[in-house]
Each structure stands twice: as structure tokens, then as C-alpha cells.
């Protein structure tokens, strides 16, 4: 779970260009701040000290102050010129961001829900479309175009190591593009306040070498095989016989609801509950039993399974690789 989430370490062109702009802006702003502060401190240091009864100097009413005037005007002109540089740099960066090449791009739809991410890999052939949740796998070096939608309130998709953020607004469709140039796991998080569990609405972007990515995608397109292990088989029966199926989908079974994260390959994911927990049997059991303890306000209800049943269920779910 120790993935990066930092806008100062970039692994793709979009975040990289922004970081370059940040460095230029920081440089100019630091210089301006230092100069203003020095001017101000010098003014205080050189001015003679006085008390409330010191007679005021009304010279300014009688004659103009040409030196002061010249200096103030010069300072304003320099400030305006520096601001123009920054506007220019900002617009130029914007242009570069918009011009990223999208040849051979991977198209993915991201739909935000309170408080998880639905991720659907588009394909010209409908049979090759597949859905997952809270974990976006992308091939290194290939551009990715995200189509962003929201199912309920406004959310914002943000992976600082790879790109700036984009809002997902109900009733509107947004797009963003990015590219990961180095293999790794990058953490992202919802950046627009979206209710109780805004804090735990995270996701991972897993950037893999293209061959590994293709292997992963091929695995995701397959329905998981029916469990061979008897405990897991019992877990599957419990899953299909309980209220789990009202919200969740597992490919190849009768569970085909879409209100909650797709569990078809849950066992292959690194986290549970949109980044709130690492994915292991113990945490999964805790999550199923008392989700409100881990993410108060979450839409998943608590389930009072008998310990045996819970164990079987967890074995089954973790076997879905």
C-alpha cells in the first residue's frame, strides 16, 4: 500500500510539464517575495523612530515626491512584466498538455460512486469490454484517455504523480489524458468533497510493461473458473444465497448487480474498500462483518455471518484472481 501520491515526483509527461511550470513559478515568486521583504525591512530599518507627539511631516501635501514616484512605478512595471511571463508560461503549458499525442490510446471509462471507482475498459468488440473497480491498470508508454462520469455527486479524479485532476460531474462527461512512462503503482484519491467517506475514496494506478498489462487484461476478460476447493465452493453458495448479490457482480455467476464494485477478480487487487484496507483474508472478513466501523457512512451494510460461513466466503472471494 505504500504507493506514491505526490505532485513533486512525476512519472509521466502531463505531471512533468506541470512540475516544470511549478519550478519556474516558484523561482519567480521566491525572488519577488525576497525583494519585497528586503525592501520592506530596509524601509523599517532606515526610517527614524518617532512617538505619537512627533509632528507629522506634511511635505507630501506641498510638493510631489518624484524619486518615490519613479521607484513605485518601476516596481509596478516589473511586477506586471513578471506576471506576463507567468501568464505566458501557464498558457504555453496548457497548450502542451492539450497536445499530448493520443495515437494508439487506451480508452477507459471511469464512473465515480460514493465512495468507490468503477473502471470499464472500452473496446471496439463488446466481448472484450471488462469492468473492475478501484484499480486502474495501464501499459507503460501508451497514452490513456479517460472518460469521466459520476453516478451521484461531484467527485474529482486525481493521480498527482501522473496528471492534474479532473472533476466528474453528474450530467456531464469529462475527458482527461495521461501517460505513465515508468512502471510502478501510483496512488490517487478523490479530490472533491463528496460526503462522509471522501477521505477513503482512493484508487491505484498500476503501470505495467505492455506485455504484463496485456496478460492482466486477458485475465480480467475471463470469468473466474468455478472454485475447485470445497471451502471456496461453499463460500460461493453463501455469496449467491445472501444479499451480496443485490449490489455486486461476479462474472460467470448469477450475481450481476452494478450498485457496488465488481468482484470478479477481487483476489487480484491490492486494496479493499477503495484504498481503506490492504487486501487480505483477515481485513476482508473484518470489512464484510462491520464495514461501518472501517468506513462510517459507507453504503455497504453489515452482515452477521456465522464465523464458518464468513471464513468460506472470504476464501471464495480471495480465490477470485
Amino acid at each position: 500500500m505504500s504507493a506514491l501520491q505526490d505532485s513533486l515526483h512525476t512519472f509521466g509527461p502531463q505531471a512533468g510539464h506541470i512540475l516544470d511550470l511549478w519550478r519556474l513559478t516558484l523561482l519567480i515568486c521566491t525572488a519577488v517575495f525576497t525583494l519585497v521583504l528586503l525592501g520592506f525591512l530596509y524601509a523599517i530599518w532606515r526610517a527614524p523612530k518617532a512617538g505619537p507627539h512627533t509632528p507629522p511631516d506634511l511635505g507630501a501635501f506641498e510638493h510631489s515626491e518624484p524619486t518615490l514616484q519613479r521607484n513605485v512605478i518601476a516596481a509596478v512595471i516589473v511586477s506586471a512584466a513578471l506576471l506576463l511571463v507567468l501568464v505566458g508560461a501557464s498558457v504555453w503549458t496548457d497548450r502542451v498538455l492539450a497536445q499530448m499525442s493520443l495515437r494508439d490510446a487506451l480508452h477507459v471509462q471511469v464512473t465515480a460512486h460514493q465512495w468507490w471507482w468503477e473502471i470499464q475498459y472500452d473496446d471496439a468488440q463488446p466481448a472484450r469490454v471488462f469492468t473492475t473497480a478501484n484499480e486502474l491498470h495501464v501499459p507503460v508508454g501508451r497514452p490513456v484517455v479517460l472518460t469521466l462520469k459520476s453516478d451521484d455527486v461531484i467527485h474529482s479524479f486525481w493521480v498527482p504523480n501522473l496528471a492534474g485532476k479532473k472533476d466528474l460531474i453528474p450530467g456531464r462527461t469529462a475527458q482527461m489524458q495521461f501517460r505513465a512512462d515508468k512502471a510502478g503503482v501510483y496512488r490517487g484519491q478523490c479530490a472533491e468533497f463528496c460526503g462522509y467517506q471522501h477521505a477513503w475514496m482512493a484508487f491505484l494506478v498500476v503501470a505495467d510493461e505492455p506485455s504484463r498489462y496485456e496478460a492482466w487484461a486477458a485475465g480480467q476478460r475471463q470469468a473466474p473458473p468455478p472454485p475447485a476447493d470445497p471451502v471456496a465452493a461453499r463460500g460461493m453458495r453463501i455469496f449467491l444465497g445472501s444479499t451480496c448479490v443485490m449490489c455486486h457482480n461476479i462474472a460467470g455467476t448469477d450475481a450481476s448487480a452494478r450498485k457496488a464494485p465488481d468482484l470478479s477478480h477481487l483476489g487480484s487487487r491490492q486494496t479493499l474498500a477503495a484504498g481503506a484496507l490492504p487486501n487480505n483474508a483477515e481485513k476482508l472478513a473484518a470489512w464484510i462483518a462491520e464495514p461501518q466501523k472501517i468506513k462510517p457512512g459507507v453504503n455497504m451494510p453489515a452482515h452477521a455471518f456465522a464465523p464458518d460461513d464468513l471464513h468460506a466466503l472470504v476464501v471464495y472471494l480471495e480465490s477470485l484472481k
Partner: protein
Amino acid sequence: MTRDPAWPDKPDIEPLRNTVPPSAEQILALERTWRDPPGWLGFISAINHKTIGVRFIVTAFGFFVAGGLLAALMRLQLARPESRLIGPDLYNQLFTMHGTTMMFLFAVPVMQAVSVYLVPLMVGARSIAFPRMNAYAFWVYLFGGLMLYVAFAMNIGPDAGWFAYVPLSGPDYSPGKRVDFWAQLITFTELSGLLEAVILITTVFKLRAPGMTLNRLPLFVWGMLVTAFMVLFAMPSVMLASSALIMDRLVGTHFYNPAEGGDALLWQHLFWFFGHPEVYLIFIPGLGFISAIIPTFSRRPIFGYSAMVLALIATAFLSFGLWVHHMFATNLPELGKSFFTAVSMMIAIPSAVQIFCWIATLWTGRLNLKTPLLFVLAFFVILVIGGLSGVMLASVPLDLQVHDTYFVVAHLHYVLIGGAVFPLIGAIYYWYPKITGRLMSERLGRWNFWLFFVGFNIAFFPMHLLGLMGMPRRVYTYPKEMGWGGLNLLSTVGAVMVAFSVLLFLVNAWRSRTHGALAGDNPWGAGTLEWGTSSPPPAGNFNAVPVVHGREPLWEAQPEPTHVSGLAADQREVLVTTVLEAHPDHRVVFPVPTPWPFVGAVATTVLFVGSIFTPWAVVWGMVPVAIALTAWFWPRRRETRAHLALERSP
């Protein structure tokens, strides 16, 4: 009521008119005329702008302390990762209440509150314009704030953020009454704010002392004038937005529902069209305080008066053209966003003009380094950082990284605390002797200042880094693995220091009422009119209304005439002057104290709060409001007679 047979031919009241210098009898009569009545009925009938001003200031600071305590709770929760001290439900209420309190119940009202007290004194008026409306505006503001805190205490405090984005704040995702209380609070504060704007504009335009032409207006008054005009244009936008929200919630309209042809983004446009100017509503009065304090403590008039005034007006205009920089992450057209980048950066220029003019003033002045000036000097460090981080946020690409992160939290606190709260506390130290007749302790003042300055930077500077390191805003907790714990703890330590500093300030303000050194009329040797009367000022502000001959009337030689003679001392008679040149125009008699504005405010409160629960409250609630307003405006026969007598007497 008995009819006076002699009326109107032979007035039975012979007005007592003032002379220059005024006699002891006239001064006594003036005091008796303008004073608020005693007793509990007098308490709710008070309309003197100084009484209302002090109540307003104290109330606003009360909300400041409340909002600060909420912030302290948030800082405690965030001090360590995955803390279980406060859950998401309470945390969301805390930051919503904190933001709402600080923006709507403290920052904007406190500036109006200080001006309610000061502006009439600074322009040489006996009273603020529309004194009854002024009292009404205060009561409405107080009741609105109390409603919000009562709701919070009953665990139905709003929890959708101070910005209440739809659809999260809409009927589907915020069931219950929480957001309705928020939306009605907006109605309360907007009503109060708009009334105050009208009152201040009228006071500045029509009640200035003769000779105070617009280009002799103190810069603080200019600031408040500009602010009042901004209120008139900005606040209707949020009132429209919140009314549409409450209608979506209560009567089933679909302004913001995309499924029925509404638009979620409409809210953001309306809200930020108000919300960005609002930042300047808070910041421009702060600039006004600085422009009042710097000349006094550097013993010279401000450098570049005209440039300063034009900068204020330019800031006000530009502030209406950059609301979209709050929406850079939405899918608005990219090219359009660039224009808002340009305007957002351009607004730095008028601020730069003012900063350079102040430095020029300090450079050529002789400095009296007292606490008020210290607070103003801190402004230079803090606001310049806030302004520069604002320049960063104005850039679309940079904003896409730091938008809605702790970087923005740092930025807005640097701007609002540095640009408004530091100058405000300085202003309180500066004008406290005018209000109470006693100076605040300089020793406590210095402790107060250094704790605040150091604590503030410890609390908020690390947030810049946290934002860049990826920490989003409005999260009730964060994972250990992110490595944000250390900086958050540091920030909490700073927040505790700020809390102590505010405590020292309150202690100082409380104790100095009785223990402070006697101030005399003009303890700082200032040059503006408010220091030309006694401290605290008499009920009618000036024993004789001054005639103004320059920008710093108390510093400059006073040619004849020095004061206005011939205004009634036993009637609330004021002199109305022309807008540009402040030539005497006509005289008008102001209303006397009455409880009806209070009753009207109670009736309005019943209407507003009732309408949260049933739309019919709007209909039936109108009846008591109408009764109160009618009684408020009903002419009294005796007063009319006195006014006529005043008109007829030579």
C-alpha cells in the same frame, strides 16, 4: 392624543441651535438627544451607531472564537494519521460550520461592524444613515448566527461544506434539514449584509462633514465604500443560488438536477460569482485598516493617495471577472479558462501598487513602532506569500495539481488571516482607545502579536507542502503510509499557539476596559476626524460638526470656518451634503430609538426559520413582519410637529 390648538401657526417647541463653540447647555442637550434610552426596553430600542457598532463587533468576535474552536477540533483530529477522535459525520459538520462561520458570520460582518462604528466618526457625521435599519440589520445577523449554532448543537448542523456544492447538498444526497439551515443562514446574512451596504453607501455619500470632498475621504472609508458596492453586486448572486437550492430541497424544483434539465455546474457559477468577490469583501477593508494605521505610525500622509483609491476600485472590478479559477478542474472550455488565468494574475497588480505605496510611506516616514503597526507589518510577510501562492493558483495547469488540496487551505488562510485578520486585530488595538477611552496593554499586545505571527506560520506554512505532497482538503483522516503525519502534527502545534494568542487578545481587550491607561482624545497623534472628538465619543459624535479643509484635518491648519453652527441640539438634526464636493445641501431630522426594528427582526427570524419546515411559513410569517414594519414607519404626531417647528424657525 390632544390636539394643540395653536399648531401649526405657533410652534410650542423652540429649537435649541448650536453655536461655535458650543455652550455647556447645548452639549448637554445634544447628549440627551442622541443617547439611547436606559433599561431593557432601551436595550432593544438602541439605534445609536456606536451602540450597534460595539454589539456588532463583539458578536462577530464571538463567532470568530466559535469558528476558531471548531478549527482547533479539526486540527486535533488531523494531528495524527487514522485518528479515531472525530468521525466523518462530526468532522464534515465541523469544517462546514468553520467555513460558514468565518466567511458569513465573522469576516464580512466584522468589517461592516467596525465601519458601523467608525465611518460616521471618520466622515464627521452625527449618525449613520438609516439608524433603525442598522439596528434591524444587526439583530437579523445575530439571530441568523444563533439559528445556525442552535442547529449545530442539536446535531443538525450543515455538513455539505461552506460552498455546499450540488448535488451533494441537494435533496437526494443531503436528506434531513441540515443543508436547509445553511441555506437559510445565507438568507439571514445576505439580508443583513445588503442592508449594511446601503447604509454605508448612503452615509459616505450624503452625510460627510462639509468640505470633505471625495478626494479627502480617508482611505479606510474609500475601502468600505468600494466594499459596500461590491456587496450590492455580489450577494444577490448567492442569494439567488441558495434560494434555488432551498426550493429544490423544499418544494421540488429542479434547478440543479441534471436528470430533469437542471445543471450541477450552475450552482458553482452562481456561488463563485459571489464567492470570489467575497474574498475581496474581506480583504479590501483590511487594506483600509492598513492605510489608516500606516500614516499615523509613520507620521506622514500616505504616499500615492489617488493611486491607492484607483487600485481599490480596480480590485473591486477585477474581482468580478475571475470566479472561474475556482472551477478549473471542471470540463469548461480550456481556452476560456486562460482568460480567467490572465484576470486572476492581473488582480495582483492593484495589490502590488498598494504594497509599494505603503513601503514608500514607511520608507520616508518616522516610525512609531506600536502594536497596531506590528500587526500591519506582519501583513507584508503573510499577505505577500498568500498573494504569490494565489498567482500560482491562477495558472490552470498548476491549479489542476493543487486545487482542493491543503495548498489551497494554506493559500486562503495566508490571504484571509494575513490580509484581513492581522490588520483587523491591529485595527482593534488602534481604535480600542477611541471606543473605550483606554489603551490596550502594549506588553500583552506584543505577546499576542508574536505568538500569533509565529503560530500562524507554523500552522499554515506546512500545509503548502502537504498539498504538493498530495493531501486533499476536507478529509477527516489520512492513511499512515502517506507520510503526512509529521507536518500535520506541526500544523496542530501552530494552531494551538494561535489559539493562545487569541486568548491573550481577548484577555487584553477585556481587562483594558477597566485597567488600561487613559487614552485622551488622540493617543496616537492621528490626523483623521474620528480622533478630533473625545474618547469615547459623545452620543452625537461631535459637539459641533467639523468643517474639513484637508485630507488629514487634525494635522493641517484649520482655516475658518472650523465648525458648523445652527444645527438643532435638542433634535436629531443632521446636515446632508452633496456627493462629490460635500457642500451643505439640506438638513434632515433622524428617527428616534424604537423597539420595532428588534420586533421586526424577530418576526423575520420566525419567517425564515419557519420556512425551513413549511413553505406556508413564507405566507403567514409575512403578517407579523408587515405589522412590525408598519409600526416602525408609523409617523408620531409629536415628532412631526417638532420637525415642522424646526423647518419654520429661522
